[in-house]
């Protein structure tokens, strides 16, 4: 019972810590790059902002993300 209480207290403390954390802003892609993300898998890639690099990803569903 004491273990369970301690575990619950740990979980509560972890949640509190998580809630107080400020989310670090996501850095924008480097100049000359574009950020593409797949809306379902969440996979994110920064690729050169040229059609040769973008089109193969975009035609599989990746979409531009503007941070």
């Amino acid at each position, binding site marked *: 019972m004491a273990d369970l209480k301690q575990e619950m207290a740990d979980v509560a403390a972890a949640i509190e810590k998580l809630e107080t954390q400020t989310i670090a802003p996501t850095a924008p892609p480097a100049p000359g790059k574009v950020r593409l993300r*797949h809306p*379902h898998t969440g996979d994110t890639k920064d690729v050169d902002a040229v059609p040769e690099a973008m*089109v193969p990803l*975009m*035609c599989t*569903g990746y*979409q*531009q993300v503007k941070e």
Partner: protein
Amino acid sequence: MAARVQQLILGLGSGKQASISAAAATFLRFKKLDTSLTTPKPVFENDAAEIGKGHEFITQTFPSHYDVGNRIEKYASAEFVTWAVAYALGNIAQTGSSAPYTYTITPLNPGTTLELPYFSLVEQVAEGGGNAIDNLHVGCAMEDFTYQFNYGPGRASSKMTVNWVGSGLLTTPSGITVPALTTENNMLAASMALTINGVDYVGSKRILSGSIGWKNNLLLNAGFFPGSGLQNGLQVRGRMEVGARVPSFQFTARLLSGSPEYATLVNQTTGTAVLSVQHDAGNSVTFTFQQMAFQMAENTEADGIVAVTVTGAPQYNATNGVLSVVTKCGLTGIAQ
């Protein structure tokens, strides 16, 4: 009093709508060539065919739905082609920190969504101190576009036509202040570069005319789903999804000794088809069919000159898809 059709003020939503029912906040004002005005058509049913009335005549009518759609025919400018292709294909990436901006546009992937970005459209015609027409159509989707090029002088050598469909959602009066006319950079066919299956049709001075098209075959009836919504007691669409999409490409070129079109057709040779047209370095459009075979090659004539008209069969390339379009123009935020 009366109003001339040239008084039409046409505003096209620049940014995509947040949802099918949320109107766009920014508009671009364009000129156009066709004289068609959009009518928000309320459709009513009646009981003429129903049994038990004692006669075959109408005794009652019933509200059904709104049917809205129209076409826009224009000389092809970098700005309008960007707008039209972005909303017709659906997956848009805008890059560049200042003008000219580059738009890389591909067809949406049906594994992620079937819904194209929705746009708003406003039509206003001033008359007698008020407005004869002042309608804001909300939740519109692009049914198709056709880019056409022809030999001959002037802006008519390069045109863009679109057909769009509305959800039926309508705001009258629109309450929209449409901005000044967009400065357009027209792209004459004389600026064209065209390479199909490794053949440079401009370098050999053979190309005469042609067209590039995309049709979404929108599932319009499926937009009237249970709970899709009502306006004035008539159904409006709550979604518009793409059906079986069809890309198309056709061109007519002078037929010379050794012209390769027939051999390309018979051998079903495939390759890229790349058409570029521009106003200047900062205003351009490049259509790339990633894998093109020929479906038909018919001998014909143009102004008495022997020619061949080729109908292409765009194929899906495993790496690059079927069609990509890269445009440059000074406008930011199109379909963003």
